[in-house]
């Protein structure tokens, strides 16, 4: 018995030593290389992390304005790690109460009536902080995805757009109302195609009073619910868009997914805290992102009439088949800004909601072309 115990003890010691070795080495893996560092912006109770990676010597920074609200910027690291990070520095900013962002503030200061403007102020300060850190001559572009476009547009409206050398927007919106209209148009277009081809819905949509069993039902529902003005309608429209979108994606998109980081790389060897990401996402969802409820920050708003003073170069790089923020929003966005046509890049990809993920090479090539034109 004692011999067995001794053997067990020696094995435990070996395991302990291995654990120490793993812990001391693993935390460096994703942080390797001189060209990265973690900055924090402390502002109004939040400690927002900005993970700057890539070619800092390029004097060009792309600020990632992530989706959500309550999403995280680290999700985009696999998309950019092997392409755009070679050419430029990428600043992965976790928004207040999103990603791995930390801090301590009251929920009274973070609700659907005040969070949007506060986060736009945060964005303005992050841009200034990056120039403070890397030099006033550093070119700062920002790329917004999904909710990040709504946030970035709020920044452009509320603050000086010239703080940015260019704005890149992907599959996000500048108006909840226009988003609803574009989604209705999307459903009509593709439901009609389904009718023409005899296709069926992958699942029925039965929410509230709606009972949509067929593509023709979908067309009828849209015709009876245009424009969208009520919360209940947004619920049905969102769900129906997803069901139609399933058919559209399977028919039109051929994702060329980027190679992801090894499993666990972001869990064990990076500044990222997946647990914080989960808690932040859930909490933000409750406080400001609760779709279809009055506490949602993402419905029934419109900045389209306040964007004419925005004249900085803008790239609208869009997944053409996205049911979440359909292509109609991109056209409206282009028509709402004051940027001269020669400074607008307008590209669609055979992709859904995330062209940077689904068509990484084509997407990165266009981002590169846009930045080189305007740096």
């Amino acid at each position, binding site marked *: *018995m*004692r011999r067995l*115990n*001794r053997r*067990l*003890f020696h094995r*435990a010691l070996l395991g*302990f030593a291995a*654990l*120490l070795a*793993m*812990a*001391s080495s*693993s*935390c*460096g893996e994703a*942080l390797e290389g001189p060209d990265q*560092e*973690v*900055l*924090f*912006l*402390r*502002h109004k109770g*939040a*400690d927002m*992390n900005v*993970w700057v990676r890539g070619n800092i010597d390029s004097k060009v920074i792309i600020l990632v304005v992530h989706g959500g609200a309550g999403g995280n910027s680290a999700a985009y690291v696999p998309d950019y790690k092997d392409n755009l990070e070679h050419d430029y520095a990428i600043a992965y900013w976790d928004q*207040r*109460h999103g990603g*791995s*962002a*930390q*801090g*301590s*503030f*009251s*929920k009274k200061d*973070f609700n659907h009536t005040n969070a949007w403007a506060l986060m736009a102020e945060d964005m303005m*300060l992050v841009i*200034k*902080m990056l120039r*403070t*850190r890397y030099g006033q001559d550093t070119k700062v572009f920002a790329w917004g995805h999904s909710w990040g476009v709504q946030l970035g547009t709020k920044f452009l409206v509320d603050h000086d757009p010239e703080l940015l050398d260019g704005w890149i927007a992907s599959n996000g919106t500048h108006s909840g109302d226009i988003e609803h209209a574009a989604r209705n148009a999307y459903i009509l277009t593709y439901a009609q195609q389904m009718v023409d081809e005899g296709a069926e819905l992958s699942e029925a949509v039965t929410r509230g009073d709606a009972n949509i069993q067929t593509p023709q039902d979908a067309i009828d529902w849209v015709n009876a619910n245009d424009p969208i003005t009520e919360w209940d309608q947004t619920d049905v429209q969102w769900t129906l868009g997803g069901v139609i979108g399933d058919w559209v994606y399977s028919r039109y998109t051929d994702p060329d997914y980027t190679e992801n980081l090894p499993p666990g790389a972001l*869990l*064990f*060897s*990076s*500044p*990222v*805290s997946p*647990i*914080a990401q989960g*808690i*932040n996402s859930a*909490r933000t969802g409750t*406080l400001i992102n609760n779709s279809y409820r009055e506490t949602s920050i993402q419905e029934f708003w419109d900045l389209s009439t306040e964007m004419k003073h925005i004249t900085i170069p803008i790239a609208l790089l869009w997944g053409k088949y996205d049911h979440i923020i359909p292509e109609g929003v991109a056209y409206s966005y282009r028509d709402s800004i004051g940027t001269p046509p020669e400074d607008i890049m307008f590209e669609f990809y055979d992709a859904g909601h995330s062209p940077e993920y689904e068509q990484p090479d084509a997407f990165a090539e266009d981002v590169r072309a846009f930045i080189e034109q305007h740096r």
Partner: protein
Amino acid sequence: MQVGSPCKSHPGLIWPSVCVLLCLCFSSDAMAQKIARDDVLLAIPPAPDQLVLDVSYFGEVIAHPGMSAAIDYTLSSKAIRLAKFTDRARFKQTSWFVGGELGGYRHRGNHVGLLLGARAGVRRQTARSFLFEAMLGASYFHKRLDGVVYVVDDDGTFSETRIKGRPKFAPSIAFGIGQRLPWFLDGALGWHVRPGVFFEIPFNTTALPHPYVQVGLNYRLR
């Protein structure tokens, strides 16, 4: 000798046999007395560990490395003799303890955590020296950002701040297994593996759980 025939003893072997038997009788009697004496000694419960020091690797989410040290003081202890060990008395022992703990770890590029607090719990040691424990804790948690921290000054400019930390409260719960090593340092040394979770309060507008594991050695000081 034929099979089935009675065995006949040689008359010359009788006396030596009697002597051997007498010797055996006396020696077994002496042995029996010794066993009885040991049994009496072993029937006394072992003294409880009054003061235990433990030093551990502290891994927040296992791989964010750190160290911790704690001292536990036993408030009460109860030993129960196990019936199944009738030849040698053995005991399982249950101890209630309170203690203080100091720990720290680094999540690179995220934060450095420092915990200072108290804990209380129960520890059971089996007859084979295995340990099982459960404990609750409450700590001051100092969370220091691990990076360059900028603040906005009143005039709108930015400056790096050296005050990177925030004070937090951290209640915790942990469960452990381990073993005393009877062959080493007279059984004063043991090992333990202790998974647990502490809660960072506040974290933004809510609380954040930090799972961790402690792997280390404990030593009976008294």
